[in-house]
């Protein structure tokens, strides 16, 4: 008897945003940034969310995960593997979780008593990277139900940036664009090879110094320094080729893709990217922007955008979605998946 090949599918997904809304005009009023830059106008980010009291990175991932498990009708004890890709990994005292993995804490919080776990680190491309790794664990028979998740308690970099001089540290300005959020995807096994597929993963490491996050100086928590203009120029330079290669590899037609979600860095950049693609490929059916209300939620940004799309009833069963990620490194990776059955009944 020959075993049937096994592939993976997205059984469910979820994004989570904490309740507290913080407005860009309050954290970056005109005059607070050199040259009287209007940060809200520059980025198109009007507001973002910040954690509620007692929450931390694990709680953000937990909230998204329980939602995804409920939607996928899977119990925590039935998860075989949890892969976390959070960049921030902060507890509510701004301590960074190092060992064991972040996903070990999440497994405990979820009651995933039978689950294996580990973390993946690839900045804002971490989620697509983790989805690919999960896909390979399923294809190779090492897991059936895999939870890919992230919790980004990343807004402490805003506080750090506010306490620095933007004149002396202009690379701290992009830190004002982030927001907290959680994301989760539940993957399962299928015999259909077309439900979850990937473009070619690429790291253009010549740009590895354009965004760096590490511990703050003389203060608790992290700091982030970004050469924003250079980073986005580098990313934009690759955009068309990156899409073209993916369309070729996956045999897709741009105009037939139902939903396109790029990494949510700033509304203005997404619009600029969309204009570039319109010139080359034509206007796509639907591209999603949620960053105007969420900020850049790092590795969770696609999941948060998917959740926003769900709330607005954008998705129907069987439609396809292209997730385009780029993260510092510079890492570029694209996933393509089919909206699962039952999506219309998800709460």
């Amino acid at each position, binding site marked *: 008897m020959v075993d049937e090949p096994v592939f993976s599918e997205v059984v469910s997904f979820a994004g989570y945003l904490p309740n507290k809304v913080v407005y860009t005009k309050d954290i970056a009023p005109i005059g607070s940034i050199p040259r009287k830059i209007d940060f809200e106008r520059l980025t198109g980010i009007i507001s973002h969310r910040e954690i509620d009291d007692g929450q931390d990175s694990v709680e953000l991932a937990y909230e998204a995960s329980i939602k995804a498990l409920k939607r996928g009708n899977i119990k925590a004890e039935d998860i075989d593997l949890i892969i976390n890709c959070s*960049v*921030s*990994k902060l*507890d509510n*005292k*701004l*301590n*960074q*979780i*190092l*060992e*064991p*993995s*972040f996903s*070990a*804490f999440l497994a*405990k919080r979820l009651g995933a008593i039978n*689950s*294996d776990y*580990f*973390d*993946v*680190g*690839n*900045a804002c*491309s*971490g989620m697509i990277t983790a989805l690919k*790794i999960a896909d*390979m664990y399923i*294809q*190779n028979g090492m897991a059936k139900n895999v939870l890919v998740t992230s919790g980004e308690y990343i807004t402490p970099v805003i506080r750090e940036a506010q306490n620095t001089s933007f004149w002396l540290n202009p690379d701290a300005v992009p830190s004002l664009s982030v927001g907290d959020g959680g994301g989760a995807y539940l993957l399962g096994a299928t015999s259909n090879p077309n439900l979850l597929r990937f473009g*070619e*993963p*690429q*790291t*253009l*490491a*010549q740009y*590895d110094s354009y*965004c*760096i*996050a*590490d*511990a703050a100086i*003389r203060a608790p*928590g*992290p700091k*982030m320094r970004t050469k924003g203009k250079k980073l986005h120029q580098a990313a934009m*330079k*690759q955009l068309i*080729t990156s899409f*073209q*290669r993916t369309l*070729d590899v996956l045999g897709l037609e741009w105009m037939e893709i139902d939903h396109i979600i790029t990494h949510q860095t700033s509304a203005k950049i997404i619009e600029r990217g969309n204009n570039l693609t319109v010139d080359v490929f034509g206007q796509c059916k639907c591209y999603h922007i949620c960053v105007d209300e969420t900020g850049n939620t790092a590795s969770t940004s696609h999941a948060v955008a998917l959740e926003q799309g769900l709330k607005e009833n954008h998705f129907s069963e069987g439609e396809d979605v292209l997730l385009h990620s780029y*993260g*510092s*490194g510079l*890492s*570029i*990776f694209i996933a393509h998946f089919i909206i699962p059955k039952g999506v219309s009944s998800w709460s």
Partner: protein
Amino acid sequence: MVVIAAWADGPITTKNNIKGCAKLARKACEDANISLQDIGIVIFSGVYRPNFRSEPSCASHIQNKLKIRCKDLELSSKHCFSFDIIDGSRGAHRAIQTASHFIKNSETKYALVVCADVKPTKQSKWLYENHALAMVISSHASGLKFISSNYSSGKLTAHTKSTFDTKKKVSVLNYVGDTNHSGEIEIEKEFKSDSSSLGSIQMRDFLLWSNNKKGELKHTIVDRTGAMSITHWRV
């Protein structure tokens, strides 16, 4: 099935950790008789990084230091993919397992796996030695064959986080809980590493032990929390 085509290890410093990792990686590639440009995947699997760096991946820094396929996208250009895996001391096993998946599922023939840890800040209490291990993983070479791996969870009796030292005004390491999971077992076909060591040392010790062995081998790593990984090998 993949093999460890070559490996190199040695001390590194916090300041020059990427340079040190790259030097070892270059030596491993020379020993494997491959060009750096043959590498399609770079996986870094350390836990402790300089000043608690969280992004970008250390793997991308190593890729850049080695100048592996660092160029802009063209329609038919070949590229490398770099990312980190974080799984305590088990990271070495996890990275090899993941590299084997990528090699099996892509056109990539060679992966570079680097396991390294350094004291994150000068003021941190550091229980280990700064060390790196670079391995060339390949489907097209002779060497120690990786067969499979399996993993079991720990009880979270211990953990390590960063914490801010208010007197020294710097983030330092904070070790919490019971870490008594040590105990070295060395029998003919099975090697259990010293769990008080970092992943790169545990893996290096196994590679040294496996020299001159034949047949099926087993390597067990137990991390600080009691989580375990068991890998099966063939010589």
